[in-house]
Each structure stands twice: as C-alpha cells, then as structure tokens.
C-alpha cells in the first residue's frame, strides 16, 4: 500500500513547461477582440443616441425657417436627420456586422469626428459643443488601439484647417484668426491624443501581463491535471492490486475454511459415531475428551475465521425481515441449557415496545447474543443472567437496545477499556480457566458497528457486568400480523407466583398484570404456603419454579394438591433436569413449562388449563404440555428416508453414511455432482445431501441441473447443502441455487437430524420410529 511519503513532492514550474508565448498571444487576441467588440457595441449605442440627440437639438434650436408668416422645416432638421443618419449608418452597420475589424474602428473614428463637426454646426458653433471632440477621442481610446486616434485627429485637423481658411469664425469664434490657428487646436487634440495613446499602450501592456499570468496558470493547471491523472492511474493500479490481494485473501480464507472443516468433519463425526458404540468406561472417557477438544477447536476456528472475515472486510450483512421476539427467545432457550447446568437463572425480558417484525441481520444478532450470553454464563457461578430487550427511537428510525446482565465475577475498570480489543480477555488467566480465543467480544463489537450500532460494558468487580448493545432496525416491507395475546378470559383471576429469583418474579408479575390477572408473589415455598393459607379467597392458579432452596416446587405442589385441591399448578423448570416431568406429573401439576418461559406459551398454557374441565382438562392439559416439552427437548427425528449423499471425501462419506444409517435411513453415496444427477434420474430419493466443492461437477451446478429437470417431471426433491465453505454469502448462494437448507462442516449429528427432519417434513409426512 503506497503511503503519502512514498510519493515524490508535487512540483509545478511554469518555466519548465512548454513555451506559453503562443497561448499568451492567443489570450491577448481574445481579450482584444472582446474589447473591440464591446467598444463597438458601445459606439453603436453612442452613435444612435447622438444622432437622435442631433435631430432633437435641431428641432429644439431651429425647428422651422420663416418667410413672413409662413414657415417650413428648417434645413438643419433635415441635415440632422439625413446627414446625421449618413454619418451614423455606416459605422453602426460596421459595429454590428464587423465589430472587431480595424476598418470598423477607423470608420467609427472618422464618423465620430464628422458627427462632432455636424453637432458643432447645428449648435451654431457653440464652443461648448467642441467638447464632443475630446469626449469622442477619449471614447475611441476604449478600443485600446492608439492607431484609431490617427484618422480622428486628421479629420479634426483638416476640418479646422479648412474652416480656419474659409470660415474661421465657425471654429475659432473670431474673424481674425491666424491661418495657423488650426495648429493650436490640433495641438490640443494631439495633447489629448498623447495621453490617450499612453493609456492605450498601458492597457495593452496590462493585457499582455494578464494573459501571461493566465497562460502560466493554465500551464500549471495542465501539469497538475497531468500529474493527478498519473497519480490516479497509480492509485487505480494500487487499488486493483489491493483488491487482487483481498480476493486472494478471501480465496485463502475460503480454502482454509474448507481445508480445516473437512478433516474436522471426519474427526467429530467419527468420534460421535464411536461414542454410540459399545465402549468401556475408559474408552468412552477418552472419546468424550476427544470430542470436547474437537468442539473447542471448532469454536476457535470459527472465531478466527469470523474475525479474519471481518478484518478483511468480507463480512456482508444479510438484512432481511425477521421476528425478533421469536429469535431472541429461541436463542435464550438454546443458551438456557448451559445456564441451568450451572444452576443459573436465565431470564429473557422482551419489552412490549419490541416490534413483532423488523428488518435486520437476524443471524448476526443471534451470534452477538450467543457470544455475550455465553460469556455471561461462563463467568457467572451463582445468581442469574438476564437478557433485556427494548425498542427505542433513534433519529428517524428505531433501534433495539439489548442488555445482558449477569451476577458474575465482574470486570475491573482497567480491563473494561481493553475488553473489546482482539485477543483480550478480562483476565488472561480466564482464557486458561474458561477457554475461548478472546475474540468473541471483538467479533461482537465489529458486528454491532457493522450494523450501525454500538456496544459497551458496565461492570463492578464481584458484583457482575452488563453488556449493552444497540442495533438499528428497519421497517419490514410486509410486516407480519402482530401477535394478539387474548387475555380477556383471565381478567381478575388471582395467581400466585412462586420463584426464588426476584427478576423472574418481577417479569412474571408484569406479564400477568398486563393480562388483567392479580399476581401474588412469593419468594419461597413456605412463603407461598403462607399466602395460600392466609388468603380469604381460594387462589385458583399457582405458577411455581421447581428448583428453590428449602422447599422446592415439588414439595409445594405436593402440599397444594394435598391441602387445597382446587388450585391448578403450572411448573417452571429448566430442561436440564431429567425426571422433572415425570415427577411433576406424579404430583398432579396441571402443566409444565421450560425456562426461560415464553410469554406466549405461558398465556396459552394458563388459558388452556383454566378452560379445561376438571374431568378431562387435566389429562388434556398434560398431554399438550408433555407434547410441547417433548417437541422442545426431543424433536422426533425423521426415519426410514432414502437419502442420496454426494460427497467426494471418503472420510466424510463414511461419516455421513454411518450417521444416517444409524438414524434408520437408507443411503446411496456418490462422489461428484454428475454422479448425483445420474442417481437422481435413476432412482427416487427423499433427500439429497449435496457437498458443494466436488471434482468434475460441483454442488451448485448439480443442484441447478436437478432443479431444471424437475420442472419437466413436476417434482421437487429436498436438497441440503453440506459444505466446508462457511464464508460470506455461501448460505445465500446455496439457497439461490435451489437448495432448501445449508449445513456447514463439520457436520454435527444433532444439527443434521434437525435439518433432515425440518426439510423432509415440508415435503412428506415424516415417518417416526413410533409409526
């Protein structure tokens, strides 16, 4: 990359340029021509005006000549009209048609002087009219052509000489003028001429000086333009080189991604497969460590690749319509498992101001959330992690404000300043203790900034931290129907909320109040019992956390069902404790929801259990709850599908084959796109797993050809991209090529099962082991 110092200092010297004399001459000629034209135009006006003035003067002074009582127009009037017209017509004609010609200038000079003579005569030889001569000479000097003064002076001299001889009184005002008196008059005219000639020469000199300066400036300007052009070309070359380097870097990253993910696919896939076999404890332990290490390595690779993409400026945003509530709640649920495993409460508080549908890069927002919430969970040993989201106006638009608050170890003020820098963690020992590349926050910061938002941290050591960030959102072109929570039937119903976590209590109380219910809050089982016993009216609904100190939710349900059978109970628990469902069912709880609870789910559950009849409602409610729970925790995988795997790498073929076979699918493996097309033409498949980078014919082309063929057969087989390319735009390219979904390598069993289940469910009813 060239720097400012690498360029020589720009030097411009008019003296070193080409000879500017021709240009100077050209400029002087241009200026002179402009001057001639302008002055000729002025004379056009002057001569017409003075002609009219001559006629007016004649009419004023001597309108008529008399003979007794009769009169006729005075000859002076006719002469002013005709002779004045003759003296005016030729110069006016020339000044209009040939304003720049020397002949025009000289004609103007002669006629102007003759006009002076006429006016002097018409005015009866008044000495004052002689000033017309001097004024005319000065006017002629506007031409900046001293030669024009010569004919003018000659006319004056000849006129005076002639009159001096024949009619001296008409010009000199006396009868006894010397025959050489005309010379005196001519001398005064010459005196003025000398001044005017000097002025003309000076004017021309200034014209040359100005033209020389302008030509110099033009010369410098041309040099400058030339240099700028050269520099621009150099910069363009440099830019092209930089772009080429960038492209090379991009390709390198893509290849790196591919080359790393392909073997990782083998490592992880085979490890997962091995873990499914009969192993002794020692072998299982070794393989589990190997899988954990591979998972960790994959996280590191993903972080580094993301960071590299951002640094290389190759990370493009995919702004599209999305549902922020669902997306945030889904992300929170994904992260809840790890939080619950540590005994942490994960609360998701989405303010009612958050729109149901917005435009933003949903995937990147989720990535930031996962980073920040993951960190919060990672660095918090006790207490809670709260995700708060609300919408706020920003300029003409809106932005989402996210806050991830934890009760973890906190960050010192010094570290807060560097925490968003690459490869920095609050404590270097953290990396060793908690793992990670230290790139998560840097990536988050870059992503937030890329989306036009900002990110910050507020923290206090040993008290916890709050990471905040904002994301500007756009208005969706086709907003989804707003979620209508019909809570009319719940109005006025008392509900007891039992949770040891204050944030959860506050959140639940807020929702319940908004639905018109009357929430009562208890921070523990005993407190709940106390409220239930002291309440004047029976409380029909209890929403209780399962895991609480002293008296847990199960004990509370047991107490309620024993002592006050009329109350219905909704249990809230984490999904990480197996057996909670069965125990809740045994104890007689009416419904069961996984934390963090979604507002919509809680409302629907409450409405359902309150609406259900005592005889059938309980069973029906349980069935719904359990089904929902099952769907959340263990989606029923597709089974018995006929799947074509197009994959050139033998290890990956083996991984895919094993994973799919174990799921009860029958699998056909081909090595490239051409073979995949032939297989699809030959046999019938429920799904194609298509590698993208294959020899002979890649996955994109194969997919396009399959889709083209399907237009004739009027069928559509789901195709899932399976690639080690995890670079910018790969997902979009796959979808654009006609594929239904995208899995990046290394392929994780759970993800593969989920994608297959999702994709095939859209096409045909999915067979399950039960069926």
């Amino acid at each position, binding site marked *: 990359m060239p720097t400012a110092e690498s360029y020589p200092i720009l030097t411009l010297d008019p003296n070193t340029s080409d000879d500017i004399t021709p240009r100077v001459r050209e400029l002087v000629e241009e200026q002179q021509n402009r001057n001639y034209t302008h002055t000729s135009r002025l004379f056009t006006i002057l001569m017409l005006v003075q002609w009219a003035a001559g006629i007016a003067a004649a009419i004023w002074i001597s309108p008529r000549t*008399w003979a007794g009582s009769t009169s006729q127009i005075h000859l002076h009037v006719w002469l002013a009209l005709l002779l004045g017209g003759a003296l005016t017509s030729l110069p006016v004609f020339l000044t209009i048609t040939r304003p720049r010609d020397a002949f025009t200038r000289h004609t103007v000079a002669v006629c102007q002087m003759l006009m002076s003579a*006429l006016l002097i005569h018409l005015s009866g030889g008044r000495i004052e009219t002689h000033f017309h001569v001097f004024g005319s000479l000065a006017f002629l000097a506007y031409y900046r052509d001293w030669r024009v003064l010569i004919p003018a002076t000659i006319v004056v001299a000849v006129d005076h000489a002639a009159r001096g001889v024949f009619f001296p009184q008409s010009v000199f005002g006396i009868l006894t003028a010397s025959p050489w008196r005309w010379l005196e008059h001519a001398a005064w005219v010459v005196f003025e001429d000398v001044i005017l000639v000097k002025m003309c020469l000076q004017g021309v000199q200034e014209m040359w000086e100005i033209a020389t300066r302008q030509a110099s400036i033009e010369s410098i300007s041309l040099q400058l333009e030339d240099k700028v052009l050269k520099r621009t070309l150099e910069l363009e070359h440099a830019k092209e080189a930089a772009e080429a380097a960038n492209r090379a870097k991009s390709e390198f990253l893509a290849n790196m991604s591919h080359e790393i993910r392909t073997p990782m696919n083998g490592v992880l896939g085979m490890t997962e497969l091995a873990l499914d076999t009969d192993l002794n404890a020692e072998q299982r332990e070794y393989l589990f460590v190997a899988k954990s290490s591979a998972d960790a390595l994959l996280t590191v690779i993903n972080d580094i690749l993301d960071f590299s993409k951002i640094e290389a400026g190759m990370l493009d945003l995919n702004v599209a319509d999305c549902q922020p509530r669902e997306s945030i709640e889904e992300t929170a649920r994904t992260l809840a498992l790890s939080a619950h495993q540590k005994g942490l409460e994960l609360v998701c508080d989405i303010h009612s101001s958050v729109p149901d549908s917005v435009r933003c890069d949903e995937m990147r927002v989720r990535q930031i959330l996962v980073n920040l919430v993951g960190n919060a969970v990672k660095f918090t040993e006790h207490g809670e992690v709260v995700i708060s989201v609300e919408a706020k106006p920003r300029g003409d638009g809106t932005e989402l404000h996210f806050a991830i608050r934890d009760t973890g170890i906190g960050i010192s003020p010094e570290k807060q300043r560097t925490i968003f820098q690459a490869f920095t963690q609050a404590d270097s020992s953290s990396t060793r203790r908690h793992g990670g590349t230290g790139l998560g926050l840097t990536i988050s910061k870059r992503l937030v900034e890329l989306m036009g938002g900002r990110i910050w941290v507020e923290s206090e050591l040993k008290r916890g931290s709050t990471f905040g960030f904002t994301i500007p959102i756009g208005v969706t072109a086709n907003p989804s129907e707003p979620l209508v929570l019909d809570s009319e039937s719940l109005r006025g119903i008392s509900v007891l909320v039992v949770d040891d976590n204050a944030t959860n209590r506050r959140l639940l109380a807020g929702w319940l109040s908004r639905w018109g219910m009357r929430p009562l809050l208890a921070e523990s089982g005993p407190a709940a019992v106390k409220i239930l016993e002291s309440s004047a009216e029976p409380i029909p609904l209890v929403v209780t956390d399962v895991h609480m100190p002293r008296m847990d939710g199960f004990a509370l349900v047991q107490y309620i069902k024993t002592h006050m059978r009329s109350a219905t109970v909704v249990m809230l628990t984490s999904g990480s404790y197996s057996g909670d469902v069965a125990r809740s069912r045994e104890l007689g709880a009416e419904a069961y929801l996984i934390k963090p609870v979604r507002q919509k789910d809680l409302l629907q559950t409450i409405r359902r259990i309150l609406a259900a009849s005592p005889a059938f409602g309980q069973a029906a409610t349980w069935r719904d709850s359990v089904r929902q729970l099952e769907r959340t925790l263990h989606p029923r995988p597709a089974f018995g599908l006929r799947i074509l795997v197009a994959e050139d790498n033998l290890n990956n073929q083996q991984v895919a084959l094993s994973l799919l076979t174990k799921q009860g699918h029958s699998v056909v493996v081909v090595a490239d796109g051409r073979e995949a097309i032939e297989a699809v033409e030959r046999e019938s498949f429920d799904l194609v797993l298509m590698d993208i980078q294959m020899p002979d014919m890649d996955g994109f082309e194969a997919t396009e050809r399959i889709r083209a063929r399907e237009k004739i057969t009027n069928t559509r087989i789901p195709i899932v991209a399976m690639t080690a390319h995890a670079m910018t735009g790969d997902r979009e390219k796959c979808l654009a090529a006609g594929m239904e979904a995208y899995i990046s390598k290394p392929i994780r069993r759970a993800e593969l099962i989920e994608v297959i289940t999702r994709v095939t469910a859209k096409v045909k009813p999915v067979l399950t082991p039960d069926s």
Partner: protein
Amino acid sequence: MSVLASLKKPAVAVAAVALWVASVGFGMSVLWRYSNTPGHAATPLIDWPADAPVQLGKGRSTLVMFAHPNCPCSRASIGELAILMAQAPEKLDAHVFFYLPANESSAWARTDLWESARSIPGVQAIEDPGGAFALRFGAFTSGQTLLYNPRGRLVFHGGITAARGHSGDNNGRQAILALLQGGSPERNVTPVFGCSLRGE
C-alpha cells in the same frame, strides 16, 4: 442577407463606401453653403425718415434691427446686439422691430427672441404689424441692422453675424463699434443671415 453578402464583394463594398462618402460630402457641402448663404440684401433709407415710428437719438446714434420673432438664426443677431450694447451703451439707442403678421395678435410676436431683445438694456422691442416698418426701411431679412448717426444719416447696414445662426466675431459688429468710436470701418455693408421678413 443578400445585401450583406453582396457587400462582401470588394467592388460592391468600395462602391458603397464611395457612395456613402459622396453623400456625406454632399450633405456637408449643403450645410456649408446654407450657413454661408446670406438673405436678401436691404435697400435702406439713406436718411432717417420723418415718419419713423421712433425718435432719432439725440446726440446718439440710432440702431434699428428688423427681426422675425421665430427666426432661429436671429438668435445669434440678438446675442451680437447684446454685446454691442454692452460695449457702447452710452452711444447708442437701439430698437428692434419684430415682424407681426397683420392678422395676428401681439402674442404671436412674444417669443423668447422678443424677450431676449427686450431684456437688453437700452434696447426697445417694437411690434411691426404686417412688416410695414421693415418695408419702410427697406429691410427684407431678419437680422437686418441699420445704424444712423445722430444726424439721421445711415452709416451702416447689414447683418451682425458671420454666418447663419453663428455667434461670435463678425464684420458687422466690428464695423458698428468702429463707427460708434468715431472710426472708419473697412466695410459699411455686410451680408445678412436670417429668415425672410416677407412672405414669398
């Protein structure tokens, strides 16, 4: 455009310029000739008539000028008379007879020229109904000036401008001044430049 185009031919251009020069020359010559062509000379009375409408000056010369009240050229004559009166006020009685057509009222003669004459000290402006006095004194042209000595003898007659409407030094004024100062002028008769006092 065709005229302009034809003017681009040298011969036509030269001819046009020559024509223009000739017309300007002709105009100038007309102007020159007109300015220097005097009016009809007078046939004045040699002696002051007894039936003159004004008295002969006692011990002073008497100047009589005949003027047409609308003659533009006579403005210069009145101007010259003013100079004369300024240079020799004690030696001269001056009377300017302004022509008044017989069928016109006095207002016809009350022009700026009348006012100019009347405002000159020692000058009397007098109406000349039908030009009778001009006829009596033999004057034909406006600006005609007659100078009679105290004995009633004509000593000068003519104009007191050098050309038509031109003020300034002139033989007439110089002659009258010389006579008033007792000298002998080179000329006693000068041409008169002005409008005719009689209808033609």
